[in-house]
């Protein structure tokens, strides 16, 4: 698989250089944006990658955390409460620095545990871990709220049909909760996407990191940040429209029905 990624990378690089050549021709040799277009795009790719990976792993973590939050067993409930409380109650920057510079302080111990090379040594790993744990906490709260929002009548009806345990959750509670959670979750996704800009503070060259680098070598603060802002905006727009499509898909049975359970979707249409 590696050779495939390498090939794609090379092709993307070559394609980007061609576009960059065009921009430089258009804007002139010294233009800060045109001359650094490919670096900025590579930064944007890292931003997207960090968002996607932490989103997927974060969601997978959030489901059990949300269930633990709902559990009456204190051994499950308390750790989940503490976890979501910490990650929602402290700034992401503190969490990031704690994991990055904090782990640096314990590098001998981490080395012994085999958690250093390829893991905590890498800024990428620390950033991904922080973002994942952070979004998992928020997503867990969203899911918990959504599961509490599933009408009791539907659960009762399911029980009357003899469903319980996993089957009840899989067939009734989760599908319904997903629909309720979707608007809040689309917000969380965009917040997470924008929060990735903090990783530039731990040496990563994401979109913001490259932009800072371009600024400090060209001193073109305004144009560079406007450009980076526009790229963030475009990707945010893409995320919103993807969620809109998903929402339309999940709500398709309500199309034209009007009223009914439509109230849960009311907050969902942003655009």
């Amino acid at each position, binding site marked *: 698989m590696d050779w495939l990624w390498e090939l794609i990378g090379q092709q993307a690089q070559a394609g980007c250089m061609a576009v960059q050549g065009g921009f430089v021709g258009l804007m002139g040799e010294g233009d800060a944006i045109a001359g650094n277009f490919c670096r900025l795009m590579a930064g944007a790719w890292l931003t997207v990658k960090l968002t996607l990976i932490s989103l997927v792993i974060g969601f997978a973590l959030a489901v059990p955390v949300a269930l633990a939050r709902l559990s009456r067993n204190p051994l499950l409930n308390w750790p989940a409460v503490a976890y979501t409380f910490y990650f929602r109650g402290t700034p992401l920057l503190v969490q990031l620095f704690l994991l990055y*510079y904090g782990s*640096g302080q314990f590098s001998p111990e981490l080395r012994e545990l085999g958690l250093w090379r390829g893991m905590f040594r890498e800024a990428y790993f620390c950033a991904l871990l922080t973002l994942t744990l952070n979004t998992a906490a928020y997503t867990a709260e969203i899911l918990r709220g959504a599961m509490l929002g599933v009408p009791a009548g539907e659960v009762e009806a399911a029980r009357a049909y003899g469903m319980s345990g996993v089957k009840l959750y899989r067939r009734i509670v989760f599908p319904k909760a997903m629909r309720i959670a979707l608007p809040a979750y689309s917000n969380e996704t965009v917040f997470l996407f924008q929060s990735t800009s903090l990783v530039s503070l731990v040496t990563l060259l994401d979109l913001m990191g490259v932009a*800072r680098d371009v600024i400090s070598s060209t001193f073109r*603060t305004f144009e560079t940040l406007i450009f980076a802002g526009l790229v963030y905006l475009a990707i945010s727009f893409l995320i919103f429209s993807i969620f809109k499509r998903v929402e339309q898909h999940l709500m398709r049975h309500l199309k034209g029905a009007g009223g009914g359970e439509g109230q849960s979707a009311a907050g969902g249409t942003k655009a």
Partner: protein
Amino acid sequence: MSFLKTAAAAALTVAIAAAAQAEDMRKVRIGTEGAYPPFNYIDANGELVGFDVEIAKALCKAANYDCTFVVQDWDGIIPGLLADKYDAIIASMSITPKRKEVVDFTDKYYNTPARFAVQRGDDFDLTEGSGLDGLRVGVQGATIHEDFVRATWPKAEVVTYGTQEEANADLVSGRVDLVMADSVVLQEGFLKVDGGDCCEFFGLSYSDPTYHGEGAGIAIRKDEPELVEGFNAAIVEIRNDGTYKSINDKYFEFDAYGAE
């Protein structure tokens, strides 16, 4: 009436005198980074101190400027000057052709060589061109050290930091294999202090005029040549009257000014 006239005249005289004095003592806002010991940093009491700061105060006194300090992150230090947030940068800024396109510089007020620091006992191949293959070198971003390392050891992986302290922290933890910075900055701000015992200087002293330039100068907006002249005269004055030496000797065991 004549009393009123006299009073008015007196008041006017005072006002003019005050205005004249204010003109005498030109107000100059000095931008500095405050995170680059021992040149400029915030001490345990929260005070801005260091070689740059003391030199700046001495220069202001010599030039008869009324100076105040503004602390600004390195990334935004030139944009801040251009945006008129302060009038001069005294922050160990090296005079380079690239920066000269954007700002004016005074003559240098010091010039010290660049060196590597590594964990004690580490040994690396520093052959220019082929050396440091696959190794990580930490530098403060957008500095001459970054440019120099990238050009001299193209096979090294350069990791850029916002401040030198962050780069040093990652040398201690082993995230980077070497850091490169000004020799004095490494010696005073890192190797000599607690937490710097892990590490030592490595390799030669580098002073390549193409990269390391003419030394550190004071950056000033291009439309203020009289401020450049004022500071230049002040540098000569404090060099001659012994003020420079007394400040220098508090910080270094050699003359940081370098070659005359």
